[in-house]
Every structure is written in structure tokens, then in C-alpha cells.
């Protein structure tokens, strides 16, 4: 059963992956002074994994993925402030609410071209941003929603100022959603999503209900993004309008471009690279760091990721495949 083995091989966990996750979970303890940034990375990585499901695996471009991040963030923050301070409950609320929003919004992206989808998704995020701005009684408007006090995690672990508990919390949620996404992309459902991405016409011609598959993955991804938003609000203790901003949606696309689309670790690698670059460059030149990010992006796309991480191929003439 050679074929059988080879199919299942793709879905199997590799030792390197396990090593990566062990390392990730050890890091808040090993480099405790960086726990806050580890927490941030875990959250944006989750956001990037969510976008990868839509963009990388299904080929649906979105410039408004922050809509779901923001929706989850505000839902979790409001829940903590007005109803119950338990983080896990709040996380569930953030995920569920964003999932519902995703289900509704999926109607708007089923048809159309890349350009119309860019516009529709961008528009959705702008609408939510302005709604949050307008209903300032509820959301705090431009001042942000402050005074979100979280209860202890599992009733035991208080969120500390060092951010260790936050980091472990976010990493755990990242891992859970990652496992879910990983199962999904290796399952038949994931296969049909890739079919839609590679060739929508043929996907239809083999009986894949294309519109409903797109709706499903968009809804799931929205829920995951909502989870990232909830983590963001909970671990920072507030939610502000910038969670809906275009920058968020653009940054996460940038991270995916850095790490590679259609490869779940691409989002994580991209998030790490992006945040570390930000940290290092902003430390040197706080005002102009976007210059360097921009330059890096241009070089990355022109040269191609495969070549960029293999310097010994820079001066050979043979072109490599796999550019962004």
C-alpha cells in the first residue's frame, strides 16, 4: 500500500514540528524577560494562520481580515467588562461571535474576482471600524475600551505583569487552533479547498460545491481570527479601534508573504520574522522602521523566498521556483 502510506505521510507530525512546539512553550520560561513579545507573536501568528486558511489554502484574497480580529477583541473585552471576567469564557464568546460574523460576511465573497473581494473585505472592516467609533458609549470610541479586568485563568493563574501567563495562554490557544487547522487542511475538505484554489472551474466540474466550501473556510477562519482578537484584548486589558485598521489586515498579509502561503507554519514563521524585525529595527531607528520592512518586502518578492534563504544560489543563473 504505497499510495496509502504516502497519502497519510503528509498528515503525520514530524519530529521537527514537535521540537518547534516544545521550544515555543519553553520560551516564556527560558527568556522570561521577552514573555510579552512572545505573547504578541503567538497572537499575530494565530491571526496569520487564520488568514492562511482563506488566502493560502483557498485562494481568497482579503484585505479586511482585521474585521474578525477586531470583532473578537471587542466581544471578549465587553464580555469581561460587563458580564464575566473569566478568560476562557470570554475567549469562547470572541470565537463564537466572530464565527457568526464570518458566516454572514461569507455571503459577500462567494462570487467575484480578486479585486472585488479585496474591496468587499476592505469595506467590511471599514464599516466595523466606523461602527465601533460611532457607538462610543459601548466601545469607548477613539479612546478605546479601557478598564477590562481579567479574572485568573482557570480560576488559578493570575495574569502577571511579566506576561508569562499570557504567553502560555496564547501559545496554548495558538496550538489548539493550529491542530484544528492542520487536521482540516490535510483532510478531504482541505483537499477540495486546494482544488478550488488551484482551479475553480475544474473543482466545479468534479462536483465540489465551490460556494459553500468557500463559505465554510471563511467562517472557520473568521472564528480563529476572533480567537486571536479575544487573546489580544484579554492579555493587554483593553481594545482599541486600531484592531479594525487596514494596517492590521495589511500586516498579517505581509507576514504570510514573508513566511509563505499555503503552509500553516508560514504564518507562524512570518509572525516571528515580522515581530522580531520590528523589534530590532524600531530599536535602531524608531521612526523609519517601515522603510526597512518595505525594502525587505520588495527584495523578498523580487528574489523569491527560496533563493533568499539560500545565499549560495544568488549568483547562479538557474531560476528557482516557489517565489511569493
Amino acid at each position, binding site marked *: *500500500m504505497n499510495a496509502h502510506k504516502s*497519502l497519510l505521510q503528509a498528515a503525520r507530525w514530524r519530529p521537527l514540528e514537535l521540537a518547534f512546539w516544545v521550544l515555543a512553550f519553553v520560551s516564556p520560561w527560558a527568556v522570561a524577560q521577552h514573555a510579552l513579545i512572545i505573547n504578541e507573536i503567538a497572537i499575530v501568528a494565530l491571526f496569520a494562520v487564520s488568514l492562511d486558511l482563506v488566502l493560502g489554502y483557498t485562494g481568497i484574497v482579503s484585505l479586511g481580515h482585521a474585521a474578525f480580529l477586531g470583532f473578537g477583541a471587542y466581544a471578549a473585552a465587553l464580555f469581561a467588562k460587563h458580564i464575566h471576567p473569566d478568560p476562557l469564557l470570554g475567549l469562547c464568546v470572541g470565537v463564537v461571535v466572530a464565527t457568526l460574523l464570518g458566516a454572514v460576511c461569507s455571503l459577500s465573497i462567494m462570487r467575484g474576482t480578486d479585486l472585488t473581494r479585496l474591496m468587499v473585505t476592505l469595506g467590511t472592516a471599514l464599516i466595523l471600524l466606523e461602527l465601533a467609533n460611532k457607538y462610543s458609549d459601548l466601545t469607548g470610541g477613539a479612546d478605546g475600551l479601557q478598564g477590562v479586568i481579567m479574572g485568573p485563568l482557570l480560576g488559578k493563574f493570575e495574569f502577571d505583569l511579566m506576561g508569562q501567563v499570557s504567553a502560555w495562554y496564547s501559545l496554548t490557544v495558538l496550538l489548539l487552533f493550529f491542530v484544528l487547522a492542520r487536521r482540516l487542511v490535510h483532510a*478531504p475538505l482541505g*483537499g*477540495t479547498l486546494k482544488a478550488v484554489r488551484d482551479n475553480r472551474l475544474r473543482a466545479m*466540474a468534479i*462536483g465540489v460545491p465551490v460556494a459553500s*466550501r468557500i463559505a465554510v473556510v471563511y467562517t472557520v477562519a473568521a472564528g480563529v481570527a476572533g480567537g486571536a482578537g479575544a487573546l489580544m484584548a484579554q492579555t493587554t486589558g483593553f481594545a482599541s479601534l486600531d484592531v479594525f485598521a487596514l494596517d492590521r489586515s495589511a500586516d498579517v498579509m505581509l507576514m504570510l508573504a514573508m513566511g509563505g502561503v499555503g503552509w500553516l507554519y508560514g504564518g507562524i514563521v512570518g509572525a516571528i520574522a515580522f515581530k522580531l524585525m520590528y523589534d530590532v529595527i524600531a530599536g535602531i531607528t524608531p521612526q523609519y522602521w517601515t522603510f526597512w520592512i518595505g525594502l525587505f518586502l520588495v527584495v523578498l518578492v523580487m528574489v523569491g523566498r527560496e533563493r533568499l534563504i539560500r545565499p549560495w544560489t544568488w549568483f547562479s543563473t538557474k531560476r528557482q521556483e516557489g517565489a511569493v
Partner: protein
Amino acid sequence: MTEYALQTHDLVKRFGGITATDHVNLNIAHGARHALIGPNGAGKTTLINLMTGVLPATQGRIVLQGQDISALAPHQRVRRGMVRTFQINQLFNSLTPLETLAMVVTQHRGEGARWWQPLGQSAAMTERAEQLLEQFHLTDVMQQRTEHLAYGKRRLLEMAIALACEPRVLLLDEPVAGVPAGERDELLQTVAALPSEVSIVLIEHDMDLVFNFADRITVLVNGAVLTEGTPQEIAHDPQVKAVYLGSSHD
């Protein structure tokens, strides 16, 4: 069950002022090897698009195995057994032939929305995928990404995907178009070896293939049926010679 696998009744398609399909009545018998020929622009591909539901018909009905499918979406027609191949390969470039066929088989057997177990979990479906790989001479390249396959292999995969959908009526749109001479035989063999219970509608410009393969031939000209008959009748039809064989078969 009617005696026909596929019928069209007065099928019409207009694009603005142009009538691309003009009151076409086709009757494809069960297990038929039916060729559809005609000069370029005769409306063969439009007809296929109408039958598979890619284009909505302006007028007329399409009946598959006695059931009216005119109002069904393309993917619903596929589930009822109306499957096509494409003149220009339409493949899933980032997948391997093995992944492609396993995915198509799984989708066709109604498990395409499963999201927890990995593709390939079901031994029965993997076995079917292996059979297809074997049947279409793709076993040796089953682990290569489709985009890296040679043209002949891609052409074979194009057909294997259609077969994986277990068609009752298979529409072959120029299956040997552009295949280099060396890889042609392999392809022709697989076309000849398609299961006899599958009714096949063949669109092809290669007259050798048409006359070897078909038991009935319909000639389309300007969107309408010019004539229909056995290969012998068509070969000796002066009208056909005039509009078709005479003009483009040099």
C-alpha cells in the same frame, strides 16, 4: 429508465444576436460512443457548456437518464453522472496525481466535506485512486506535483479525474489535442479501454480517432445539427464533405 443516457430537447443558446446553439436535439444511447464533429465555431464547446451547466440555456431541456437536469448547478449534474474533460487541461497544479485522484474519489463518494480524518484514511478510496493511476499509466509519477508532469501525462490525468467521478455520460472535449506523436498511443489506448457502460460523447478534430471510435456521429454547423448517422453514412454524405471535410480536413 429511458433508452437514452442523455437527451437534449430543442436546446437554444443565444449570446446577444448570435445563436450559438440552434434548436439542437441530441439522443445519446446508453453505452454509446457518440462523436460530435463540425468546423471551428460550429458550437461544439458551447453545447458541452450547456450540457454541463457552465452556461445557462436560453431555451430547451436537458435530460440525463430520464431526469430533467436543466435547472441544476454544475456540481449537482456531476453528482448525477454528467462529467466532462476539457480541451485545455484543467488540473490542480499544486497537488500530485495521487492527491488529486484521492481527493476527487473522496469528493465523489460524498466525503469531500470531512475535515478531521486525513485524506487517504479510507483504504477503499485510496485503492480506487491507485486503480485509476494504474489504468491511466500515472503510477510512476503519482508523487510529482502536477505542474511538473509532461504534457501527455497531464492529458492522461485530465481524463483520470473525469473517470474518478464515475460518469454515466462522459463528455470528452478533444482528448488528444496537442499530444505529441510519441505519447498518443498511450492516450488512445486508454480512451478505447473506457468502460463500455459509460456513454461517451466525443468532440474531436482528429478524423482517424472519430471514425475508429464512434458508432454514431452528429455533425454540427453554425450551432445546428446538419446531420446524424453512422460513421459510414457520415463518411459518404456529400453535404458533410462539402461543409466540413472538404473545407478543413486537408
